[in-house]
């Protein structure tokens, strides 16, 4: 698995104050569980994303702890309330120094 991977965030760019937004995030990652073996019987070492964090203008609004039972290319659909215009930052981190992040801007009226 490459250290850099594609991240996709689907969310509205504009919202009314107080509106509940649905955010869909997908990150490209094999999520190697550590329970699979190669043809020669060697165990494939675990390599997964362990943490996901969503911050809204620097304030943590949603956090996830992932375990090997999460499917490959983890998809998470969650919600947050539009409070003010600003930036949402999405951060993933995991085994073997994996880290990636992306941001989305939101205009709140």
């Amino acid at each position: 698995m490459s250290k850099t991977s594609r991240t996709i965030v689907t969310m509205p760019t504009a919202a009314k104050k107080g509106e509940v937004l649905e955010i869909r995030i997908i990150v490209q990652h094999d999520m190697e569980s550590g329970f699979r073996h190669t043809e020669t019987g060697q165990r494939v070492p675990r390599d997964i994303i362990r943490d996901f964090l969503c911050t809204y203008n620097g304030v943590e609004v949603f956090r996830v702890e992932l375990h090997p039972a999460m499917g490959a290319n983890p998809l998470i659909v969650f919600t947050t309330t539009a409070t003010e215009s600003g930036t949402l930052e999405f951060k993933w981190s995991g085994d073997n120094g994996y880290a990636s992040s992306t941001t989305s801007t939101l205009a709140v009226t």
Partner: protein
Amino acid sequence: MGAAVASVLPVLDAWATVDDATQAVEKILGNQKATVGRVTLDIPPLVENGNLVTMKVSIQSPMTEADYVRAIHIVAEGNPLPNVVSFFLSPRAGRAAITTRIRLGDSQRVRAIAQMSDGSFWQGDAATLVTLAACTEV
């Protein structure tokens, strides 16, 4: 080094049992009890491929500063490791409903445990039949 590896492997090889799941749940609960209710866990009753199972968990909660869902834990009884995923929410979530995709190693009962802002625990579960289990392919 060799001895260390040998001592680690059997633990990893062991399939989780319902007891392991119970232990995982006890670790989440501490010394508290979880009440059945308020938690809805949606998993297809028949799963063709355990490698990617869409799961939706939702909790009845007003999601206000005074009363919100603090955390949701998913525990699978038939997986090699009982813990699947944990979500940590704040009142700013607006709704306590999350969709994700998980792996299921066998036909089993999956449990969802929610901790509310007042510290109380609520749980719900869903039974599912898995035709092709995850972790089986070479």
